[in-house]
């Protein structure tokens, strides 16, 4: 592993996250000693029941906060609770397009914040919008777009800043199944073209299998990685991949792994004393 160091994009070491004081009964252990290495250009899904800490882990990698203990390293640099916008772009669960700017202005702001020269703004923004088929909506305000279109643009904004790493926190959660599938294909295409490293948090089994090179299946809270499943199919993946027997086998495997965890989570929600 040590000699492979240059190929590792993200290295997560013994990350533990507790919310609240450990001595208090209402403190929550969200992540329990999680370690994971993600290779350059790899698409890794964090799959698990709700509240298992997968989004928390993503935020730790993205530097939105510092974990209770453990470290995240991105391309050899310690994250340490600060965003590294030159290396990492975020796409959040809900659209974070600023409603007071048009689509193109939203891209400009992101590029400005990243310190990218003004001369490149329009080309980059339009290229990213074209990649998700939204180029003709550049002058629209986010409120004038449907939820699906907004999330498309939101994803494009994450792409246009050209970081090597893209962290996506359930970006398709608010979308209908059909829009999800189309965006999933776009994303697979994008991965094949750009070679970005993508970490993707999801609830959806099909989404995880369709998109991932590897799926990290989480346990119920406190979140630990239960198993890592390899999906050995090259990107870009066509929708036909979903019809292959391999796809359903992997999906079923994920479901079998998750079933007990989902039950544990639901028991926890019904009665906090149960676990």
């Amino acid at each position, binding site marked *: 592993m040590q000699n492979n160091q240059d190929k590792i994009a993200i290295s997560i070491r013994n990350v533990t996250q507790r919310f609240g004081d450990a001595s208090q009964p209402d403190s929550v252990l969200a992540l329990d000693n999680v370690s994971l290495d993600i290779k350059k250009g790899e698409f890794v899904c964090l799959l698990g029941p709700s509240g298992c800490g997968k989004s928390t882990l993503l935020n730790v990698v*993205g530097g939105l906060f510092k974990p209770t203990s453990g470290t995240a390293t991105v391309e050899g640099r310690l994250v340490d609770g600060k*965003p590294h916008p030159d290396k*990492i772009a*975020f796409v959040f669960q809900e659209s*974070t397009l600023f409603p007071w700017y048009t689509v193109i202005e939203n891209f400009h702001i992101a590029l*400005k*914040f990243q310190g990218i020269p003004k001369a490149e703004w329009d080309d980059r923004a339009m290229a990213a919008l074209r990649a998700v088929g939204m180029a003709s909506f550049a002058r629209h305000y986010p409120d004038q777009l449907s939820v699906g279109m907004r999330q498309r643009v939101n994803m494009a904004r994450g792409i246009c*800043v050209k970081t090597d790493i893209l962290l996506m926190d359930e970006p398709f959660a608010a979308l209908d199944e059909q829009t999800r599938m189309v965006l999933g294909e776009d994303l697979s295409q994008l991965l094949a073209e750009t070679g970005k490293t993508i970490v993707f948090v999801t609830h959806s089994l099909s989404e995880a299998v369709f998109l991932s090179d590897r799926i990290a299946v989480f346990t119920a809270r406190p979140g630990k990685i239960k198993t890592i499943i390899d999906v050995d199919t090259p990107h870009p993946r066509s929708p036909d991949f979903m019809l292959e027997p391999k796809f359903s086998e992997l999906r079923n495997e994920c479901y079998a792994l998750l079933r007990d965890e989902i039950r544990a989570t639901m028991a926890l929600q019904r009665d906090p004393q149960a676990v």
Partner: protein
Amino acid sequence: MDRSSLSSRSVQWAFLALAAGAWYLATATGSVSRLFLPPPREVFTALVALVQTNAFWSAVLVTASTVAKAYVLALIIGILAGYLVSRSKLAVATIEPVISGLFTIPITLFFPMFILFFGVGTGSKVAYGATYAFFPIALNTIAAFANMEQRYLLAAQSMGGNRWQIFRYVLMPGALPVLFTGLRIGFFICLASVLGGETISSVAGVGRNIALTAELMEPGRMFAWISFVVCMSVVLNLLAFSFENRIRAR
């Protein structure tokens, strides 16, 4: 203008016409004494005569400059205080209820103290108007900045925006619509307080003249002053609304 706003506009005009008709009828039939409510024609004649006097314009100037001073004071202190409070959750939780609590007290009760402290001249009206207008401005500033959705700030942070950039490009434009509502409400409260203060106790200004003409039993002139204020308020309100809409539409 679309259909529904067209029809609501015509209802508004109809209401105005109805009020004017009632005014005319009440005075024409003699069912209301001319001393309490003079007929529209008399008020109009008085208004035309009034705007041709120097006294009228000097009174308007006094009131306008008093309102301007009071408003600028309230604006600066209100926005500054509101912004500072909005920066800390603890401050919002402790100070915001105090400000909104104080706002429910009729500050008019303290008007005599303003006279005691600042004299019967314009100073007391500036202080009084500024005090009243401070509250809606500060409260809306707190609401505008403190209720900013966290996800926008998080996104801006993850894009690498520095503190000034996040303020300038995210916090400010996001807060502007609510902030501006506070500025509009604050302005009209300021105007009302200054005019009210002038009516109760002062030596000059529009409010002073309204009180004076009432004491002198000159209803025609009194209503001429009042109609002038009403017209000005309507115009200012329309201006404020169109400005606010332009900000929202951006």
